[in-house]
């Protein structure tokens, strides 16, 4: 016993000496390298010597992400992070190029499309190989697509991206037909024949999407349940290979240039290191000390960095809006909905609360997304501002709505958003609504993302702050979800005229593109006139980017960034 006590004390002394020595040692190190030296890598020089990045011209990129990659199985991927790393390590038939145009990937050139737009013949390049040496063949696509639509796989995006697009997809997914009947077949090892259900005009851009990536049947079958659990259970055919990815154990991973990639000579980056960092302040601190080349900024930090050359905003076609559940007797009233949509000062909101380049949204389709097939005019320019802030009008409509309902006060629940600025945004919207619309009480409940989705699906909300990013380049990615039979229709909105316009656009008018586009324009007007949703803003994201990093392409859908053409120029 006595000994034990002495031992403890001795240990204490030892430890304190030890700690003092450690901090002393590194402080001299810190002094010699000085502060704010930008690209030197202080602190990590031990143990992770590979991480370098300061030598001029060394093609290593250090990045941060806010969450773990949930899955690398292209059939099961559903979120932006998964599609980001699938996009960097895998190659589909096409990949998005600089202006969001599909450029050939595994496909050798542009597809041959039949007269009726239903049959697509695509020749594959013969030099593409998987990282285990197997060639990438047409069979890999057939296997992957069948796997995604097979009800056994339980894929969410399989049916979402393929139903009503690929022939028989819907029936297969419902278990009514065999997977072999899916409209895709390998004519030869290097020729793919795709049969569509309808002549979908945006099919070309769909082919760049993660769900349409190929899978090596032998490898996937061999791995079984272990497929894509770690980077060791994966093979790649894209610009980079993934290494040290094990979501069970690590919050970091590395992408290395894939020497077997068919277009390897275009790829200049040798290595991309990614770490998961959830706190923005930590990310900014890492940027300050040069340990990362990119940090995403919240509004708080924009104030500090807005004037620097490292600051970049990336506008994206992602819309945020309020969903108003018409199962609520008050929200069923059109005037009430319109009043709510007009009562919020959106300009102040994007300028002060978001402060990252986001712009006010006054419609259901974002700006700079698609153009009219004939005139080439932007969708937004044609339809203009449909639902703008107008507090006086809002008050008027509100009074009218109250009179119609025969009440003088209304209480509504508000399901909060889940972005970084959500707390402030929600508090602001509540305040704006209650201030402008007399007799309205808004009760905020903010819940985590998954919980919000669960409540959304159960239609368990009055008003919900929600957002949507596009899946392919066509207005239908925005407008399909507001039809009464859409799986995303949780707000009980039902307008026959709207349903009819969208239905026509997705069927009869598929071959008459200008008329189809006009239908979408018309449908948006109907939607906004009903104030089914109250558009808030079109998001832009603020980043600190090391100015020496060049050639990173920002993509409107699928993966956020493409590193295939990126390089570092010191």
């Amino acid at each position, binding site marked *: 016993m006595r000994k034990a006590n002495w031992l403890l004390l001795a240990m204490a002394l030892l430890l304190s000496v030890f700690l003092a020595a450690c901090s002393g040692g590194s402080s001299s190190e810190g002094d010699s390298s000085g502060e704010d030296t930008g690209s030197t890598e202080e602190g990590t020089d031990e143990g992770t010597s590979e991480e370098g990045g300061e030598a001029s011209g060394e093609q290593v990129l250090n990045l941060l992400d806010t969450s773990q990659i949930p899955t690398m199985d292209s059939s099961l991927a559903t979120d932006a992070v998964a599609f980001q790393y699938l996009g960097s390590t895998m190659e589909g038939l096409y990949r998005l190029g600089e202006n969001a145009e599909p450029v050939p990937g595994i496909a050798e050139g542009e597809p041959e499309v039949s007269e009726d737009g239903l049959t697509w013949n695509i020749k594959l390049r013969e030099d593409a190989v998987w990282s285990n040496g197997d060639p990438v063949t047409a069979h890999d696509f057939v296997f992957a697509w069948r796997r995604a639509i097979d009800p056994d796989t339980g894929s969410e995006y399989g049916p979402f991206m393929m139903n009503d697009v690929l022939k028989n997809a819907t029936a297969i997914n419902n278990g009514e037909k065999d997977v072999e009947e899916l409209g895709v077949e390998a004519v030869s090892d290097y020729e793919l024949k795709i049969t569509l259900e309808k002549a979908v005009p945006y099919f070309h851009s769909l082919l760049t999407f993660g769900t349409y990536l190929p899978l090596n049947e032998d490898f996937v079958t061999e791995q079984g349940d272990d497929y894509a659990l770690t980077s060791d259970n994966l093979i790649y055919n894209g610009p980079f290979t993934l290494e040290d990815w094990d979501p069970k154990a690590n919050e970091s991973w590395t992408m290395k240039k894939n020497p077997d990639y068919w277009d390897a000579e275009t790829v200049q980056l040798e290595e991309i290191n990614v770490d998961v960092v959830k706190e923005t302040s930590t990310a900014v601190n890492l940027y300050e000390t040069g340990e990362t080349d990119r940090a995403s900024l919240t509004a708080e930090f924009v*104030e500090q960095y807005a004037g620097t050359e490292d600051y970049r905003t990336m506008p994206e076609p992602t819309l945020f809006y309020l969903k108003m559940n018409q199962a609520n007797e008050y929200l069923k009233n059109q005037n009430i909905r319109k009043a709510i949509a007009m009562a919020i000062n959106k300009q102040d909101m994007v300028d002060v609360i978001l402060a990252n380049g986001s712009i006010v949204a006054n419609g259901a389709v974002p700006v700079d997304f698609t153009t009219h097939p004939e005139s080439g005019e932007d969708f937004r320019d044609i339809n203009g501002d449909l639902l703008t802030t107008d507090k006086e009008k809002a008050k008027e409509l509100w009074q009218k709505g109250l009179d119609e309902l025969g009440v003088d006060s209304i209480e509504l629940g508000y399901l909060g958003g889940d972005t970084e600025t959500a707390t402030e945004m929600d508090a602001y919207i509540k305040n704006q609504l209650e201030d402008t619309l007399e007799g309205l009480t808004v009760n905020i*409940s903010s819940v985590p993302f998954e919980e919000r989705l669960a409540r959304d699906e159960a239609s368990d909300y009055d008003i919900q702050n929600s957002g949507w990013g596009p899946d392919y380049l066509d207005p239908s990615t925005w407008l399909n979800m507001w039809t009464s039979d859409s799986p995303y229709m949780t707000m009980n909105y039902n307008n026959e005229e709207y349903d009819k316009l969208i239905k026509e656009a997705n069927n009869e008018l598929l071959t008459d593109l200008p008329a189809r586009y006009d239908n979408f324009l018309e449908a948006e007007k109907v939607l906004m006139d009903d104030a089914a949703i109250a558009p808030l803003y079109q998001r832009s994201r603020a980043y600190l980017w090391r100015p020496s990093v060049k050639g990173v392409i920002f993509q409107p859908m699928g993966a956020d960034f493409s590193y295939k053409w990126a390089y570092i120029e010191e």
Partner: protein
Amino acid sequence: MDKEKLNKDLFVPAKPDENESEQIQRPNLTYWQDAWRRLKTNKGAIFGLVVIVLIGIMSIIGPHFNEDGVDDQDLGLSKLPPRVQGLESIQWLRLDGTKTETYEAASVEAAKERIRQRFTQTDDEFITYDVKREGDGSKDSAKVAGFYHVYEAKGLQDEYFWFGTDTLGRDLFTRTWYGTRISLLIAFVAAAIDMLIGVAYGGISGYFGGRTDNVMQRIIEILVGIPNLVVVILMIMILDPGIIAIIIALTITGWTGMARIVRGQVLKLKGQEFVLASRTLGSSHPRILSKHLIPNTLGMIIVNTMFTIPNAIFFEAFLSFIGLGLQPPDASLGTLINDGFKALQINPHIMIFPAIVISLIMIGFNILADGLRDALDPKMRE
């Protein structure tokens, strides 16, 4: 040493007075008076008490010091630094309504340019500079501190926000005291519920003993094994996050500590004579418990409660940090600190004031509880 001879006549036998012999010389102090007397001599405890009382009073009247309401937003007044009348000239206090930033650059002019950028200004109209080090052209050789006079720049010369404002332009003075009120409310209610359940449970368990005690103790033993944190998070997942959910979550296992303490005390006391006497006189069980046993354990109960309150406040802050706290625009010290934490490096004023208040509350309660423990401990009685 002189040995003085004393005259024996000086010594007269005292007159025995029967009335006086029974008289108590020292004032008759009850247990509480005695405790209070001892507490008063403990400077730390008194300091703690004063701090708590002051913060308590401020939490009631603070939000009404000015016309700004808790949720009065004005984005035009976003993120103003603190400014207090009369304290503007004392520079180190930083209550003069300026934002400051120090930059290093190759030359003074370059550093100034960086400062202008930081405050998104094109000229020097509202910026004053303090050149700390003249540059010689080499990297980071010049060092300049810039002061941006925000109130003047926004034409608010006559406005004073004592604690500044947050992103939505809400007055932080009002919100801090309002948040203090909510935090204290959560803590007091949670502590009161803990006390009620704990005292009743512990009292019954200790008093009746035997099989009742055995079963009740086994239940506690199991409950104690469940980590508080897990229960809190699970509870908040079922209930909507909010004041009530937090209170329920805090109390669902929180009372076990109190129950154990009360039980121990009751076990010790129940065999004593005064209890026996009361029982012989025919008092009912509830009467013995409530009139004799519980009052005698009150000291321990109070001390334990004093430790519970700051813990509850801290836990609420922690819940806010992981995103399970109150709903906006409601405010507690936890949500205010969490909001401010995000902007700590750019607008430190948003976090500092609520952080100071929470620290004062923690210090106050902890040293008061320490003092109370000493004061209420009969062993310390002189």
